[in-house]
């Protein structure tokens, strides 16, 4: 494990392996890049095995298999076993579509540590509408398999205006399924979520009601279930400590082998990110321009540069700064010290007006991705 605590700083702790952007679902809030259809070919099994080994040697310990739908890779069993052999704590982040008894048995034997299953809603109707599929019953089947194979039940439900009023029913469904952990993750406005933002942003009143319902539910179930309620940062006055700082703990490898400090960073202008086909992960982490550009705080402008909170929130999210202000080195406009903060409050105010003026909803699918890849990225 030489080089794990390199003189140049600590290595990554979390490795996110985005195995594929292919997905049987078409979720309107998906954070995958909208132009995924324009990306290159997926990495081979051998490439991924090398990435896992190099990541572990750098000190990464948490490993997420994600996508897209990672179950669409038929080498997932090989990668799971490799990860366990290397000492990773591994997590399969899945819609559950494609999970069957043969595969989950292989994952268990290979040493996969846990499975995070997503639901779109507590009802078949809304789940199937939001994912533009008929998948609710398949997800229930996947949930039963996860229990049968003695995995901790970790449910993830992305919240937004169209389902946030169902939080009570969603939590009851989670309880019936025997969930030990529930993440009620409000949509983050990246990728497809950003395209559909006007349709997805809840109102402050919706958010407060959902939070109260969640709190009452927590009090009823006590320690049996751990429930995380992630507030959308558009409603905050200080930005999130995005990725715990650029190039600090988090490393994503995209399906085509591009290495990224976060899964959305590819959108940023004037930056090239290395590919694991061409460079070793250590050189990528420590030496590449892409990983060094926003590391530390030397890149910061005012109001971040002289802000006492810069060590706490790292100026927020570079992608959000870019999407909302046009310059990734600006303060994340979620911060009310940002001169662009009104862009966030305007979006929240716009959401109150309801659907009348909103754009039609755009489902994540290959045709829409090709169309969006031809346009430049949306900025305000």
């Amino acid at each position, binding site marked *: *494990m030489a080089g794990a605590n390199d003189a140049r700083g600590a290595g990554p702790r979390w490795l996110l392996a985005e195995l594929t952007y292919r997905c049987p679902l078409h979720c309107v809030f998906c954070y995958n890049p909208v132009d995924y259809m324009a990306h290159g070919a997926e990495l081979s099994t051998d490439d991924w095995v090398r990435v896992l080994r190099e990541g572990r040697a750098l000190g990464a310990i948490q490993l997420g298999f994600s996508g897209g739908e990672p179950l669409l890779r038929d080498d997932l069993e090989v990668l799971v076993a490799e990860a366990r052999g290397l000492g990773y704590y591994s997590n399969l982040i899945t819609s559950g579509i494609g999970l069957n008894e043969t595969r989950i048995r292989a994952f268990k034997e290979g040493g996969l540590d846990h499975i995070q299953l997503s639901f779109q809603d507590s009802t078949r109707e809304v789940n199937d509408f939001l994912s533009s599929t008929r998948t609710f019953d398949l997800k229930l089947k996947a949930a039963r398999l996860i229990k049968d194979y003695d995995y901790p039940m970790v449910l993830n439900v992305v919240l937004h205006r169209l389902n946030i009023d169902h939080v009570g029913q969603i939590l009851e469904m989670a309880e019936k399924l025997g969930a030990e952990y529930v993440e009620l993750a409000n949509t983050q406005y990246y990728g497809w979520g950003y395209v559909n933002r006007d349709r997805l942003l809840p109102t402050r009143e919706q958010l407060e009601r959902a939070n109260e319902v969640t709190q009452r539910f927590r009090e009823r179930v006590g320690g049996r279930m751990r429930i995380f309620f992630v507030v959308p940062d558009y409603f905050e006055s200080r930005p999130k400590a995005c990725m715990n700082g650029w190039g600090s703990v988090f490393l994503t490898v995209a399906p085509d082998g591009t290495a990224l400090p976060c899964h959305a960073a590819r959108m940023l202008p004037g930056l090239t990110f290395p590919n694991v086909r061409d460079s070793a992960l250590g050189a990528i982490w420590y030496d590449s321009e892409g990983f060094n550009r926003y590391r530390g705080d030397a890149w910061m402008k005012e109001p971040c540069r002289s802000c006492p909170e810069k060590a706490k929130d790292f100026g927020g999210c570079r992608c959000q700064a870019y999407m909302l202000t046009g310059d990734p080195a600006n303060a994340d406009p979620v911060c009310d010290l940002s001169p662009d903060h009104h862009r966030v409050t305007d979006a929240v105010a716009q959401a109150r007006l309801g659907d009348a003026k909103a754009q039609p909803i755009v489902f994540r699918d290959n045709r829409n991705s090709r169309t969006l890849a031809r346009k430049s990225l949306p900025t305000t």
Partner: protein
Amino acid sequence: MNFPESDVLPEMKIGLDDVPEISRHFRLQFEPAQSAWVLLYPEGMVKLSASAGEIMKRIDGGTGVERLIHDLETTFPGAALRQDVLEFLNAAHQRGWIRGRR
């Protein structure tokens, strides 16, 4: 995250006669990159302090608390550890990291 020392002491659920084990769905392992024992679980990780690591690594589902304390006091002679170990084990129990049986 280190084991916080300022926590209010929970009711003692783990006593000298108990045999503690690491809870299902948690994994304890030594991380050379962090020179520390870490406890891994869904959605998180706790980096244990040196003393917490010394206690946790001795929990194997077969060793009783009394013997565990004796072993620690042999490894670190001169220290009276009984109270500290019991307090740690009970805090760990309250967090769901370990379970006890008699």
